[in-house]
């Protein structure tokens, strides 16, 4: 178990390094840098000096060396567009993205697994094809479009939910602690719903297939022969086995959820990593883009390691190994 963990973490480190290097190369190969679009009134020699300070006047390999050196000393760099150390920005923005991820992942699993079980139990019947059709409808929708339609629905036609930011800007400051919490939760609803609708269809599909796979197995017949009711069979005997593949799916869903979150954060002005990264790319703010890419890849790697560990905990056959 401990060796599995160590191996996975080492692999993860390699993945993060690879992602970082690739992103670095691509980013720096693209034309322009943070100072390309700067104020014309700044003298050329000042800009040159800035370029020199940020290593931008040297060849790509040297820049990469610079970057690695500063990373090794624990310095994530300085955001030119925000005029703040990158670490400070991360501390502000990463928790908000994690909050959004956490609730979205949790809800899409609850919804996806629930739908999958329902579909499998009523295979071929109305609940099966009905819920699959609806889920597929949302799954095939572009993420930003779905987000915009939710805005239209819940902010314009039926204006019951806030569509932007994390808190009420006008009344927020006067709220008590409890009111603030409710207000924050209300702001979470639409971004979370967008992400859940985008991902839960895939989870439901996997869950349905896994349930149907397990239902064909012999121990299900044994359970019936023991006199266990169909309800208990699908909830207890089948689901416990069919959850195993879904744990892996959880790890795989994380990247697409993070990707979707970028656009969803933009649409709902949710001040998270996606929001800030999109802006940073436009500004050629290398340090900030690199940091946010690294954070995403670390999240994905950790998610997959967690999935592996959960799998091992849930499956006695792996636990022993």
């Amino acid at each position: 178990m401990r060796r599995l963990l160590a191996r996975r973490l080492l692999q993860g480190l390699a993945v993060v390094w690879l992602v970082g290097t690739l992103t670095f190369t691509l980013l720096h190969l693209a034309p322009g840098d943070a100072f390309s679009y700067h104020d014309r009134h700044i003298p050329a020699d000042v800009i040159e000096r800035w370029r020199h300070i940020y290593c931008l006047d040297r060849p790509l390999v040297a820049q990469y060396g610079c970057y690695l050196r500063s990373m090794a000393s624990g310095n994530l760099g300085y955001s030119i567009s925000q005029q703040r150390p990158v670490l400070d920005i991360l501390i502000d923005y990463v928790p908000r993205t994690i909050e959004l991820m956490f609730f979205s992942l949790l809800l899409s699993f609850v919804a996806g697994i629930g739908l999958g079980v329902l579909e499998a139990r009523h295979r071929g019947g109305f609940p099966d094809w009905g819920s699959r059709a609806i889920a597929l409808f949302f799954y095939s929708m572009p993420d930003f479009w779905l987000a915009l339609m939710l805005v239209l629905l819940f902010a314009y036609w039926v204006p019951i939910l806030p569509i932007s930011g994390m808190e009420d800007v006008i009344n927020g400051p006067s709220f008590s602690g409890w009111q603030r919490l409710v207000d924050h939760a209300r702001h979470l609803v639409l971004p979370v719903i967008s992400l859940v609708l985008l991902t839960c269809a895939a989870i439901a599909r996997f869950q349905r297939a896994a349930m149907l796979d397990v239902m064909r197995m012999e121990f299900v017949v044994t359970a019936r022969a023991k006199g266990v009711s169909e309800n208990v069979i699908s909830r207890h005997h089948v689901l416990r086995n069919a959850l195993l593949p879904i744990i892996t799916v959880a790890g795989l869903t994380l990247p697409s959820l993070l990707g979707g979150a970028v656009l969803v954060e933009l649409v709902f002005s949710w001040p998270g990593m996606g929001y800030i990264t999109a802006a940073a790319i436009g500004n050629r703010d290398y340090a900030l883009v690199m940091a946010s890419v690294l954070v995403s890849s670390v999240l994905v790697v950790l998610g997959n390691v967690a999935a592996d560990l959960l799998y091992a905990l849930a499956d006695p056959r792996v636990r022993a190994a």
Partner: protein
Amino acid sequence: MTEPLLSVQDLRTYFRTSAGVARAVDGVSFEIAPNESVGVVGESGCGKSVTSLSLLRLIQRPGSIEPGSKIAFEGTDLLALDDEAMRKIRGNRIAMIFQEPMTALNPVFTVGAQLAEVPRVHSSIGKRDAWARAVEMLGTVGIPDPAERAKSYPHQLSGGMRQRVMIGMALMLSPSLLIADEPTTALDVTIQAQILELLADLRARTAMSVLLITHDLGVVAESTSRVIVMYAGEIVEQADVRELFAKPHHPYTEGLMAAMPRAGTKRERLTVIPGAVPSPYDWPAGCRFHARCPYAWERCEREHPPLYQIGAGHVSRCHLAVEPERRNTPHVPLAAQIGARA
């Protein structure tokens, strides 16, 4: 004669698929007396497993037990029960064990939990008491150190141990009928003997009846008192075990016996029955065995034989019962001729 524990009359289990109707079990009738051990023998595909699953009404769509079939158990018409009443019989009054104990046990639960589940679903017994009974049962079926082993998962046990667990699970509530579907097929020969011995021992102690489904006549000879031979969805012969081995009547039974490897006999090759069990979607007309039979004549292709009474408690679905002289003129079966030509 005592009142039978189980009486099956004209059982028909059909599978209606897009390819047609598969008549897997096609008019099977038999009885089992209390504390009797009955064997059902036949090749794979003859309908013996579907028969056993039908008894517990465990046939899944697209399969169904046809109207007109009757299964009476302890005086109750099982086919008339609603699902809930039927569920209460399964694992309680009639229990079943399966061929492959690895796949028949749930991999993610401990064996103790799987045993304890049986009394839990049939009564309001507490968790702790159910667990204690599970441990006790594991001891009864000969598992050493049952309190520790109960916490094992199926993959941590050997094949023989797993089958003991299956048997223990089936016997948790002292059923009056145990259906054992190929219980020893997946096991080593030495373990096979132990499991059969355990079954015989438990039957003697609990007065339950056993219906033993197998393709192995050796298993039947060792552990049953009466044998039902099935072929192509029908019973083709039924007799007392000694009578059957001494005087097999149906050519199919003869074939099965000739195909049995015997120690101490000098035979270069095992005899095989030519051809294979026909398709349940399209049973042959006349006698279903005629293409593979060394005695078949024109009547066999035309007329479906009834179960002829051969002796006391001995029936056979073969026209040889009325034209015994045909036995003197064996020939190469049709299926073998086709095979030779191909």
